[in-house]
């Protein structure tokens, strides 16, 4: 047990970095997801194609490969950014693809009459999407978005592989010094569980609060 209390500050720093990675990634992925989902339902063929290509390319290569490409590849072409920043951007783009698909399924679940009524009133396509369709679509996909949030949290651990000292990397470092893997990694695991439990709670509350009366 001492092994944990002795290294509280390392665990603490790791946890803070994990939470930061997760929250920044989630915010970014939500924005990317909305934009890409909007592209995928737009009346402009080129935008639809671009949206689809984005999702296909991002989803069909593992996140770890993307992280390695970005961390080692970008400096080669002259793009220098910190490890943390690079990791956030990569996770945003990657999770953005999944978020876009979830949001698109929400858009498809909104009755066609809602968009027709909006356009019949003179709203442009973008206005009806933003003011009528998306607010309803997002409410119907709170649960899948909650799952994506948890997946994002878990995926931040991959940043450890490219040198970001988040929770998993911090635990690894402590273990290198102390060689008590069970205590150390079970503790890290419990911290992840607590965070994802929190996400689950928030998802449940939002889902009840935003349920649409039909």
């Amino acid at each position, binding site marked *: 047990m001492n092994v944990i209390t002795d290294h509280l500050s390392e665990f603490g720093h790791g946890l803070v970095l994990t939470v930061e990675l997760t929250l920044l990634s989630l915010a970014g992925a939500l924005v990317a997801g909305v934009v890409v989902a909007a592209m995928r339902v737009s009346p402009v063929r080129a935008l639809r194609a671009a949206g689809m290509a984005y999702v296909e390319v991002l989803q069909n290569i593992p996140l770890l490969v993307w992280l390695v490409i970005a961390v080692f590849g970008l400096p080669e072409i002259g793009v220098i950014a910190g490890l943390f920043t690079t990791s956030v951007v990569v996770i945003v783009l990657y999770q953005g693809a999944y978020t876009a698909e979830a949001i698109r399924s929400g858009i498809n679940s909104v009755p066609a009459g809602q968009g027709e*009524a*909006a*356009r019949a*009133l003179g709203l*442009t396509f973008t206005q009806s999407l933003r*003011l009528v369709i998306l607010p309803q679509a997002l409410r119907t996909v709170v649960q899948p978005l909650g799952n994506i949030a948890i997946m994002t949290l878990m995926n931040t651990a991959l940043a450890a592989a490219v040198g970001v000292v988040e929770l998993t990397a911090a635990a690894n470092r402590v273990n290198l010094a102390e060689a008590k893997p069970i205590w150390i990694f079970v503790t890290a695991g419990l911290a992840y569980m607590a965070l994802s439990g929190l996400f689950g709670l928030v998802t449940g509350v939002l889902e009840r609060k935003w349920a649409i009366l039909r």
Partner: protein
Amino acid sequence: MIEVRGLHKRFGAHTALHEVDLDVARGEVVVVVGPSGSGKSTLCRCLNRLESPDAGTIRIDGAELPAEGRELARLRADVGMVFQSFNLFQHKTILQNLTLAPTRVRGLSRDEAERNARELLDRVGIGAQAGKLPAQLSGGQQQRAAIARALAMKPKAMLFDEPTSALDPEMVGEVLDVMTELARDGMTMVVVTHEMGFARQVADRVVFMADGEIVESGTPSEFFDSPATDRARDFLAKVLSH
């Protein structure tokens, strides 16, 4: 006010509208009747380009409906549409349903839009429901709200596609009353309906469609008392027999 020439619409191999010409004068109430699948909804939806025709032109108040974009949105704002399934925005209150387009499209201030909206809701008899969500209203109330929502844009004409077909029988009357009132106030209206009583009493002209064509067009008494074609006689025999 509405001028349709040579309108053509196909869905795959099926021709839904064939060479449709239709003129609706300012203040005129045209009721469109016909058997199921005859193209009434398609015509109605083409009039504000919710469905894009394959050929033909549509002019609203002299201006031709453009294919898409902002210009189309602007012209649509001048033509109100009421749907069979109401299509009120489910996540907004009745009042917000009425103020959304006037503020976003017409650029009205929120105060002004709300004032107009409350006036309209009172006019259709549901002023007390302003703060509720659509799902909390009865079907008849929802359809009256939908009519008020369309009127909030101060449209030059109104399209109704079977506005009472989704309603329980006891609520049909309250919606038809609102529409009758609107017709009396001089609104230009195109109404697709199976309510023959409304057609007879309120229409200036009845248009009978079958198989994607306008087969007959005349005053209600001409149409109901002495239909000119066999198809219209058949249709009337069926709908008036009960």
